[in-house]
């Protein structure tokens, strides 16, 4: 009987750096907008409660930023696992809630490797495997590995199921 092994391949450690940088940028932009609004509030004498709401939102954002920049990337990278064999593609990830997705190779419709400017700087690529459902994404793989995997999945996915009963 065929036994499916638990996925144990990991994504690149540099993923942590990439996520840290991108999360820092996002939170900086949000904080800047927030501070801008608060300043405008003081300057133009807006209603007090509006300024207070912005204050609370910016404080919340700073708290979330600490989580998103210092803690979350490390944990996400540490717990991310994937596996690909001739029959199935698997990903298993999550910090508080573990998600384990299993899709048969025969149901794969396309596979692409993408990279943005940040990923490029660290020589990483994100692999996207499209099925009829939402695409399965394996983020931040070393470039050579991503390209090799892409080729492999494309080869495996050539096998299709006969569609009748």
């Amino acid at each position, binding site marked *: 009987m065929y036994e*499916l092994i638990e996925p144990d391949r990991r994504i690149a450690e540099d993923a942590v750096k990439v996520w840290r940088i991108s999360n820092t940028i996002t939170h900086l932009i949000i904080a800047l907008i927030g501070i801008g609004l608060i300043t405008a509030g003081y300057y133009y004498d807006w209603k007090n409660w509006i300024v207070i709401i912005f204050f609370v939102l910016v404080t919340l954002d700073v708290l979330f930023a600490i989580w998103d920049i210092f803690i979350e990337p490390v944990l996400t990278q540490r717990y991310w696992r994937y596996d690909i064999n001739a029959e199935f593609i698997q990903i298993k990830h999550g910090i508080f*809630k573990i998600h*384990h*997705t299993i*899709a048969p190779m025969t149901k794969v419709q396309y596979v692409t490797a993408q990279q943005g400017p940040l990923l490029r700087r660290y020589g990483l690529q994100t692999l996207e495997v499209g*099925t009829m459902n939402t695409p399965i994404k394996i983020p931040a793989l070393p470039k050579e590995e991503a390209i090799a995997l892409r080729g492999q999945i494309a080869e495996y996915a050539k*096998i299709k*199921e006969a569609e*009748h009963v």
Partner: protein
Amino acid sequence: MIEITRMHPMKMIDALIKLVKDSIFIIILLFILNIGSDVSTLIKIFRVVFFIYITIKLCMIVIEWQRTTYEIKDETIHIRGGLFQRTHKTIPLYEIQNITWDTPLYYRMFQLTSLKLETSAASDSATVKLEAIKTDRAQQIEELATHFKAQDISTDTDMHEEVTEAPSQTVNSNPDAYAQLEGTAPILSEKQRTIHFTPTKKDLIKASFLSFSFLALIPLLAVGYQNLEQFIDVDKQAEGVLAFLTQSWIITTIAIILLIVIALVFGIVHTFLKYGKYEIASDEARIFIHRGVLSEKAFSIRKANVQAIQITQNPLKKLLGLAEIKLISAGSMDDESDDVRTLYPFLPIKHANNLMSALLPHLPMKEATEKLPKNAFYLRMIRVPWLLIIAAALIIWFKSNWWPAIIALFIVTYASRLFAYRNTCYIWDETGIHFKMGGLWTQHFITNRKKIIEIEIEQSWFQKKLGLANITTVNRVKPAHQESLEDIPIEAAHHFKQWYVQRYNDVEVKIEAD
């Protein structure tokens, strides 16, 4: 095959009816509420704009009709059209999965129908609508499409040529010759169809009470009342009528009984018209559903294309032993014709098992026996009832003297949690997978591992401590159909995973050509 043809001119009338329907509100506003010539300039301007709009629309209807053509050539259906940008849609006949006939009463008088052909592809171009064609032409197209489908199953593509050469007339006159040509899969003529279900009078009366269709009378009355108000001062009249009705309890009772009788008669007539000539039939490859007395709707679906079955019951249906069976198939989830894919909304449950095993042998019924563990009960009880909290907060904030409603909500929330826990059961084996869920409203979901295109196992921190997990199946429909079962033991979730990966026992594979 079929040469380049336009839709029937009735298409224009149909478009006209739709246009009037869509702009009825504006017409009432501009010409009935503001009657006569003694109106403000603004209304006059709007009237002119409206006339221009209608004129353009009318021209567009004619041009669109004139430009839209269909053709069947080389086993492919071509639809050309487009007003400013020419469009050309092509769909190979063998890709057509579902066929829907929609025949409103005014189409029937001219032997016309509107035909919808669907493929299982997920894109926009996956559906073709032939909006007004002659019934015999529709028959011909359906036979061509289903015929290719049937043939595709029994043999390989190399036989297509042979079939194309056969003139389409033989399809109607000599089905036996066709059956020979195709080997095992017979042509889908009326003769080979088996009728599995037609509702009896008793079923229909039950259905008309259940469907609450007599409530449809209320908006009609409201509209009538509003229209009347334009001409006479109804309110004053109504006051007089009301005073008359309430002056003695006998008259009041008679009035109420009369109203109920009218509502019931209306409901029964409505149900008889909608579900009266209902028929569920099938042949080897397809299921046929036909309904409607005046306006007709027919739907045919490939059995192999049915990805899953959903059997739902609300408390009333449970009481009467009825159930609604829905076929989940690619291309079925998206639009208004959805209710046709409901096999029959008021099917006697004792009928259902036999019917399903006759219609869909690849999705057999089975009693789900596995129950949720005790831990699942604790977890479900301690889960934060967000909806309840928000509702309670709103009630206290706005209407604090409605506080008993909070108690009622509390009881309903926890009772439904308890019922959902007690009613949930599941099973999976070589023949299929069954999830039975729900408290007062229950749902039974059936599919098999071949039809599942992806699975997911989820486990939250709490579930990990209690040794529980959620499992999700995904079926190939557009958009993908997901069905989750929550809080089963983690060992069962592992077993589910191992069960799923054995799907290679069930499927045949082939290597796709480059």
